């Protein structure tokens, strides 16, 4: 009975490998990688960080065996009660979020844990933590810095994505997750794993709200932030804009936008 189940699992995994193309088969850097996604969702009054940790087979095994109180090789649901939140709490001090240079306290909103099957049906580990830091800015523009030092020495995919709602964001960052939150890694022969460990951007709390904000305005809550949508257009246009004044930043935006459209019209 046990062998048949195992055989079925193996066949299913093999099938999945063929159907979902090579990207879904394994981790980009092999079976001891620890992969990170940090999605910063910036709102007018808070930053919510969706932090996903994807551990390949070996680190997953090490975690599971530390959970496995009755030593049967499986982390049963009663054995992993409270594990995800405890694990998120150990990740928390490794995340450094600063607002105008001052450290901001993050707190855990919620967490989940899954053990998706990896190579040969062995478990991998997928931990999701949602952290939140309240914002209260006096000035109209503030510098936000974020650094992810969790498992800094272990190789793996490290991704930081920034999105905003009801705010302007200026800086050099990605606003979409090319790994789809560590679910599909691109062809690893021609794409090196991302190694984004920190990000810096300016948050502009203009009294004149950006147009897009109205439609997606979402009160701060505990809903998972996908980080998959680009909610604000200018993010991708301006690369490495230097702060300090709002006016100059906006001028750059307008100029670039103008240039872009004039070039599109007369190729």
């Amino acid at each position, binding site marked *: 009975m046990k062998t048949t189940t195992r055989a079925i699992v193996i066949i299913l995994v093999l099938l999945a490998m063929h159907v979902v193309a090579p990207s879904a088969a394994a981790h980009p*850097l*092999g*079976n*001891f990688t620890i992969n990170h996604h940090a999605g910063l969702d910036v709102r007018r009054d808070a930053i919510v960080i969706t932090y996903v940790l994807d551990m390949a*087979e*070996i*680190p997953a*095994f*090490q975690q599971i*065996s*530390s959970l496995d109180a009755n030593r049967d090789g499986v982390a049963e649901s009663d054995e992993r009660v409270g594990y995800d939140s405890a694990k998120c709490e150990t990740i928390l001090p490794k995340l450094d979020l600063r607002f105008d240079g001052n450290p901001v306290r993050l707190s855990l909103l919620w967490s989940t844990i899954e053990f998706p099957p990896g*190579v*040969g049906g*062995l478990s991998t580990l997928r931990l999701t933590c949602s952290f939140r830091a309240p914002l209260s800015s006096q000035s109209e523009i503030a510098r936000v810095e974020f650094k992810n030092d969790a*498992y800094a*020495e*272990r*190789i793996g995919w490290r991704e930081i994505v920034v999105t905003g709602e009801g705010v302007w964001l200026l800086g050099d960052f990605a606003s979409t997750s090319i790994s789809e939150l560590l679910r599909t890694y691109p062809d*690893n*022969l*021609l*794409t*090196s794993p991302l190694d984004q460990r920190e990000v810096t951007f300016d948050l502009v709390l203009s009294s004149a709200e950006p147009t897009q904000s109205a439609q997606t305005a979402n009160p701060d809550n505990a809903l998972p932030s996908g980080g998959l949508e680009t909610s604000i257009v200018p993010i991708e246009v301006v690369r490495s804009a230097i702060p300090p004044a709002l006016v100059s930043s906006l001028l750059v935006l307008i100029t670039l936008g103008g240039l872009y459209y004039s070039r599109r019209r007369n190729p």
Partner: protein
Amino acid sequence: MQGRLKFHAEPRSGQASPFPSGFRVALLLLTGVAILTASHLIAYIRSGSESSVPLTDPSRLQPSDLADFPSASVGIRFFQERLKQNPEDFLSLTLLGQLYLQQARTTGDIASYGRAEAALLRALEIVPRYPAGEAALASVRYATHDFIGALYLAQAVYQVNPRRTDLLATIGDAQLSLGQYERAAASYQELVARASSPSLLARLAHQAELNGKPDEALKLMRRAAGEALFNNVAREEMAWYLIRLGDLHFNAGQIDSAEEDYQAALRIYPDYYLGLADLGKARAAQGRVENAIQLYEQAVAIIPQPDFLAALGDLYAIMGRPEEAERQYETVEFIGTLDALNQVIYNRQMAMFYANHDRNLDEALELAARELEVRKDIYGYDALAWALYQNGRYQEAEEAMLQALSLGTRDAMLYYHAGMIYVGLGDSLRAQAMLNEALSINSHFDLLQSRVARETLDGIGATAALGSAND
């Protein structure tokens, strides 16, 4: 067209030049001679091991002594971009393959070997039998422990491209790993006659080590490290030479010198996983167990390699932390079952781990026996002998052990295994001799096993004393 002709014709008229033609010819000749002399001199200095200084004091080596080269990952990104522009660019594919190979070596990430192979196979699909691609592919086969595949490929390509000495090196390495010691010696000798390099000296050092000449091995390795420094190799490469030097010191029982070498390696290439683990090994031998644990924990955080995990487990066990020890041992077992590549590369590590920790003894024997079918080197025989011993098959163990000792290698572990096998056979005279030899070569050869060796020796001594008292 006319313009070009005119351009060529002008200097010939002689009017443009301030020198008479005879003088110019002499000047040209002189310059030529000067360039030739200089290039010969440089070549002599570079190749002549006589002129480069052997590295005797690694403790003085500083990071600034070496140039900064971009890491493999920078190169990888560069060629990836080129390939996105032109997927048929076989040169970029070959270079990408070589860089992945380099990355696998410096990071210990064996998945990079798979990427190297994929890139090289794609290059060879575009240009079949491209020598540089095939040579790199042979290196990948060697690195992934497909020694026979590496040997056949390298030999085939070398026959058509006899000028490629890198293939000759791969041939020699594969022969050595397969236990074809005489053939390997011949390949290396042919290399010596053709080109000297730090890597060749390191190969000769390894050969001397196997042949039971530790002093010569050390001398060669110091020269290799000195030449590597002189040739201004990349930091990670220099660190590798230092680690090899440290291993030779360690195996000869010179623990403090080994520690210095490992520290030097970490100074120029911090966070080098091999350096951290080896320094941990040296610290444990010096009795600084807590520090050793820290170092192994760092190494394992970078890469959970079976031998590191096993050593860390042993350290926990010594410090009375059995649960943590068990967790490391379980991870080792898990890695052994993970996938085909892991099984091939860590095969011997796994067999030794099982035999040393009294776990899965049947499997230890099976692993060792299976590997020996294709790879008949002395350490293959040693692994088999040790697995047989642990399974209580002392007679067969002795047979295999004699093969393992056939080169006269001065390795304490080999003598320890032989000693324990003789204990099993009830030959306490031979057992005593072998165990004494092991401890005199390196009394710190292994954290747990060297204790067993000492205790066993004491036991034999006590029995002997009791025996003579009774007489």
